[in-house]
């Protein structure tokens, strides 16, 4: 009977022995395994890390980044990662903390060399003012500010810099290559932004309504006029009464374009489109939202194409650029 009494001890020893057998150390010449919360961060990390990195994004581009299930399979990815990058500002508060805790990888915990919060140093919009205890009366508000900042390519340069610093911490011997990649990325972004701004210049100030408040940064960069949202408050689905008031104000203000992310139901927006004659445009919230959006640059090309198509379809006449 003494044998069964020793069972827990045996199990414990088995755990230790097996873990010694299975664990291998990572050689310095190996690629940096990067896991990111969103595919956009993975896209930028690929530009900066180049051939020295492999990337995996937890959320898919067509998925709502606020509501990702913390599936244990992601913990396995994080367990093996050398670096973890997140958007921060509590965007991923519902799913990243349990994943990081479950991954048992001290290399990527907040404060460690392999942890990158991409929001560091980024100028934010819509930082809520006033009494924090009243914030949730305003719906699902992010206390630090609107977290959809990756939808501005110029802020993307700051994200790239945060990632660059993370890469240098994890693999300092390749610093010069990362630095080169960073400056190439910056130049490409500047060129792209100038090109796309010029394309949209003729539509400057066109009034647009969005389903959810994901687009203030995109709007700020490309100068259309985001006048309102179909959701009465962030995260609160519209009631029929609210929809009536939306339709009224759309008619009053002559809003002919609606934008929506792929992960929202288009039922209500289609209803509004039918009543107002406005055009519904599905923009990509992230890299990978559509199969053709493979890089961070593609994301903006795609969205601007879609936006201009939508404006043409809505019969909005482009103004002659000065």
């Amino acid at each position, binding site marked *: 009977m003494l044998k069964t009494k020793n069972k827990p*001890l045996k199990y414990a020893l088995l*755990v*230790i022995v097996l873990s010694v057998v299975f664990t291998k150390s990572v050689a310095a010449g190996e690629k940096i395994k990067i896991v990111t919360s969103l595919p956009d961060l993975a896209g930028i990390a690929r530009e900066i890390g180049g051939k020295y990195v492999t990337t995996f994004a937890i959320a898919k581009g067509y*998925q709502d980044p606020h*509501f990702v299930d913390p*599936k244990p399979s992601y913990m396995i990815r994080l367990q093996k990662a050398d670096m973890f990058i997140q958007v921060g500002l509590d965007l991923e508060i519902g799913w990243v903390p349990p994943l990081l805790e*479950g991954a048992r990888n*001290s290399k990527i915990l907040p*404060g460690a060399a392999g942890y990158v919060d991409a929001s560091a140093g980024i100028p934010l919009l819509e930082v809520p003012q006033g009494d924090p205890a009243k914030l949730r009366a305003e719906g699902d508000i992010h206390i630090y500010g609107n977290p959809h900042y990756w939808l501005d390519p110029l802020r993307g340069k700051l994200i790239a810099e945060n990632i660059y610093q993370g890469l240098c911490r994890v693999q300092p011997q390749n610093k010069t290559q990362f630095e080169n990649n960073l400056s190439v990325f910056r130049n490409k972004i500047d060129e792209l932004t100038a090109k796309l701004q010029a394309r949209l210049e003729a539509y400057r100030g066109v009034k647009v309504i969005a389903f959810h408040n994901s687009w203030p940064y995109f709007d700020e960069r490309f100068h259309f006029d985001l006048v309102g949202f179909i959701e009465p408050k962030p995260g609160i689905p519209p009631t029929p009464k609210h929809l009536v008031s939306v339709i009224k104000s759309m008619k009053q203000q002559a809003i002919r374009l609606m934008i929506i992310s792929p992960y929202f*139901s288009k039922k209500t927006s289609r209803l509004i489109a039918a009543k107002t004659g406005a055009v519904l445009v599905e923009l990509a919230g992230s890299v990978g939202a559509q199969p053709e959006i493979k890089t961070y640059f593609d994301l903006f090309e795609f969205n601007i194409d879609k936006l201009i198509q939508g404006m043409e379809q809505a019969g909005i006449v482009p103004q002659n650029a000065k």
Partner: protein
Amino acid sequence: MVYPYQFSVRIFGIIFCLLLNYSITLFAQSKGRQAVSMDSTVVDSTDMLLEAEFARELAAEKKTSTSGLAAGSREIRGLVSRSGSTLNPKISAIGTFLGAATQENAASKPLDIGLQEVEIVFDAYVDPYTKATFIIGFGDEQENPFAGPDEAAAFDGEFSTELEEGYLTTLSLPFSLQLKAGKFLGNFGKINKIHPHAWNFIDQPLMYANYFGEEGLLDRGLSLSWLVPNPVGLYQELTLEATSGAVASPSFTGRKDLLYLIHLKNYVDLNENTTLELGFSGIRSSNDRERHKSHLGAIDLTLRWKPLRRNRYKSFEWMSEALLSRRDTATKTINSTAFYSFLRYQLSRRFFIGGRYDYAEFPDDADTYEKAVSVVLSFFATEFQKLDLQYQYGSPAGRDTFSRILLRSVFIIGAHGAHKY
């Protein structure tokens, strides 16, 4: 059949010391390795020598500089108090309001309404190596038509305060190990670890009520879990727990031996939208003063489907658990069983409908059983508030069948974190 109590304590002590010792050593080694590889690609013997030298120097410094620390600490204290409020742990409060309307002939008051529970959760990193969680509950007695009339106690406005959970979790043990120490809900089956407010039904499944009591398996001790490495990238987590055994559980009424628990969680993504979880649990402890043993074995299966593209609008979940109990007594061995199965479908962005079937015998009586059928409708107003409405038809052991309707509102304020998948 009788084991000396001190012997089991000793064994337990040995396991703990062994693990702690071993992991601390390995932890120190792995830290060293990481620090070196950050600065250069080649780790040669001079680095190792230098590292050893630093280790010696630093250890020596610690001893000599204790007198100087007192003078300096005053300044540090000033700094801490200035940033004190930002260093508060994450705090949240969760309220559960419950209303119950039960058929007249049942062993409980026909109409009952009140605040069932308030939970206060504190949660923060202690330092780079550990995290602490404290959950304090203020609970009121509630009607339970399955319990006998003597035990039935209505809401009376008297709240009892209890430390529901309080534990330290390590974050940086090597080899994907994680150690939890304190008072916590045992890692048994699928829902034992989940607090009732996060269940997708209102009442506790009869399986848990009859075998673990109304709080579930809750005990003080240690829990060590390990992510089992495997070539195919399957998620496998093995948990071993050794706890005091002094639990308010009908299965383990001995309170003289430690309670040992083993749990293996297997998880696989069948495709992008569908996941399958299969768990095996086992517990062993004593059920009387003579140290007769009780063994529990359980299996849990959870299938979930949620399309990623529309993950807020549609989902489906099927969760089932079954348990076998073997209880040795002075005169005989009692083998009993219990199970439940729960199915839930998401109707729209905020509405869910579900059904549950319960069957449960008793740990000390395999000849009587209880059954229940429930239908649950849930409305998620926001992430921070939900309403559940449940109809239940119950057949308690040795009493008339009854129908009842339960209505529950759960609301959260503060920084409440995510729930485990």
